[in-house]
């Protein structure tokens, strides 16, 4: 769970959060090496997303949102770079990055809030991806800010189950 509400992208992202886009060898234990490094050096991870990258799954890309107040960014990058399985690190300031995140939420569709809830979903641009007798699952793929907004809007309703992936990012094209 997030330690505090996510404040969204660009202007609303607190300065202390930095995005590290880290290319790593796709080998057993690499994630443990990264997590272990952060734990033993006292660096805080805000969110983490991992998936195979280019080159026929020889590499994976790890997007780490770090708390640059827990340690200077230079230290975090320097120590991370010493991990032999880390191939490249791109330090992305939020304004220089294109960030996206995926949000899934299951919402009860009781009569009381049905129209308000559907209105919220529509306004957020989320789509319905699963329908049950008394609830629906909706998905939003968007900026962290858009996900924040939907998350806040859904706080008004009871019994919402919500999952977010943490963001992935790439450098903004000039």
């Amino acid at each position, binding site marked *: 769970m997030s330690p505090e509400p996510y404040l969204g992208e660009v202007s609303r992202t607190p300065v202390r959060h930095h995005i590290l886009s880290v290319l*790593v*060898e796709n080998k*057993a*234990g690499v994630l*443990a*090496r990264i997590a*272990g*490094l952060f734990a*033993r050096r006292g660096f805080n991870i805000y969110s983490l997303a991992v998936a195979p990258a280019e080159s026929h799954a020889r590499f994976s890309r790890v997007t780490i949102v770090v708390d640059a107040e827990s340690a*200077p960014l*230079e*230290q975090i990058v*320097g*120590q991370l*770079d*010493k*991990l*032999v*399985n*880390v*191939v*490249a690190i791109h330090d992305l300031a939020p304004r220089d990055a294109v960030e996206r995140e995926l949000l899934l939420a299951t919402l009860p569709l009781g009569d009381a809030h049905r129209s308000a809830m559907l209105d919220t979903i529509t306004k957020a641009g989320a789509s319905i991806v699963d329908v049950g007798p008394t609830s629906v699952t909706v998905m939003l793929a968007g900026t962290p800010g858009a996900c924040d907004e939907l998350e806040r809007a859904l706080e008004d309703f009871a019994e919402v189950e919500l999952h977010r992936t943490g963001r992935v990012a790439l450098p903004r094209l000039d």
Partner: protein
Amino acid sequence: MQLTGAQALIRSLEQEGVDTIFGLPGGAILPVYDPLLDSSIRHILVRHEQGAGHMAEGYALATGRPGVAMVTSGPGATNIVTPIGNAHMDSTPLVVITGQVATASIGTDAFQECDITGITMGITKHNFLVQSAQEIPRAVAAAFHLATTGRPGPVLIDVPKDVTQSMMDWWYPASIEEYDLPGYRPEVALDQEAVARAVALIGESERPVLYVGGGTLKSRAAGELLAFAERTGMPVVTTLMARGAFPDSHDQHLGMPGMHGMYTAVTAIQKSDLLISLGARFDDRVTGKIPTFAAGAKVIHVDIDKAEFNKVRHADVAILGNVAAVLTAFDAAQATPRNLDVWWKTINDWRDQYPLVYDEPATDGPLRPQHVIEAIAAKAAPGTIVASGVGQHQMWASQHWKFEEPGTWINSGGAGTMGFGVPAAIGAKVGRPDRTVWCIDGDGCFQMTAQELTTARSEGIPIKVAILNNAYLGMVRQWQEMFYEERYSEVYLSADLPDYVKWAEAMGCVGLRARTLKEMYEVIDEANTINDVPVVIDFRTDADEKVFPMVAAGASNDDILVHPLQRGERR
């Protein structure tokens, strides 16, 4: 050519030029011990795996070549964790091979299974779990490359039993490209712009100090350091990890800085206007209270590991690179400080006022530990290697022995591992059989790893061990005396239990004892005549002796406490 994984492992070690393995066999590593019989590699059979690790460290520190240790899975592997952690803290090149249960059994809590790659993740430079026999050569070649390049360190190779038992087609990586290390780039081009800024800072400085750390030894830069120091006339301090990087006999050498450093070395740093850090890492034992450490100094930080920059102290100029290359670049640019006559006058006043002193030895004993070390040094052959454990005796050895060349001081710096001395001395002697090797040990340390003297005796490794026996865990006692109102808690060991002479004899060594000055001189002479078996000397020393100078933990280096004989004289 078809080989078993075990044969390929031994053959790979031969390819890397390994002449000695320190180890102890067991179930999971058993297949590898068979082809070892047919190899030219010498195997030293230790009595405890910790001994194997520290011996490999001693070998590496004395020779500059990577030390190699081999142990079995489970407890064999966990027993060598302390040396791995120690080597990690001191950037010592080590390759440790551990047996592992068969691939199919991994994760099932099999007999003698443990996740040693997981356990050592944070204390190795890198580690490998080898998945197939065909991959063994690559893992070994990569391990040696990693251990010895960039900032050196320990690398662990975990080899499952079925991998060493299965067949492979022999090959060996012909070049670094075949090591499959796409994320590892230890070589960096020197940042000439940073060098130029450093040269400019040097040119402005009136009170520079060369702060020499272990990285200077690791990059084999003693020659460049001597040339640079002599050309510029700058004062030099060598940290605990760098003793021997600059001759103690040299007039520009102020000695060791830090918690138990020389008054002049500590104070020169404090008053400097430019600190040139050469492969040092601003360890807390050197800096004392960080905000008051060399508060008026600009810092040029030279290191091969960029994560050291600005970790503890802001660097005005950070230069990524090997110390030797950077010093060569400084010389090429004719980096020269201002006239240092006033600075040297100040420094020499400190030297005159606060030399290293200790109380007059008493004829009938107890012996002064500092005096024992000086008496051993006085009779030691040039180039003698000194190993130590950790504690008061280590500090006294570093202070009172005169180190003249690299590889002559073997100690545990960052980790502070008690029991390091005896096995490290053995490893050093194996690596440098031409040299006399003394281990200056404490009675507490000696009891932790003394069983390796059996190894030394049986393998024909004639080291000399001086136990400074004050019957206490001396450094802890010193702190309890100074900071806990002399409330001594769990530090008394007894001078007579064990009987160190009998213990030495039981291990096939010569055991000697000295209580008086006369006996001290006699046993040192006797020890120097024995060159076929290890010698252990039980020197009965004064438990009240404390290590001075001293900067209390967390205190400012400005508040350095000199020896009681010198108090009241401070300006």
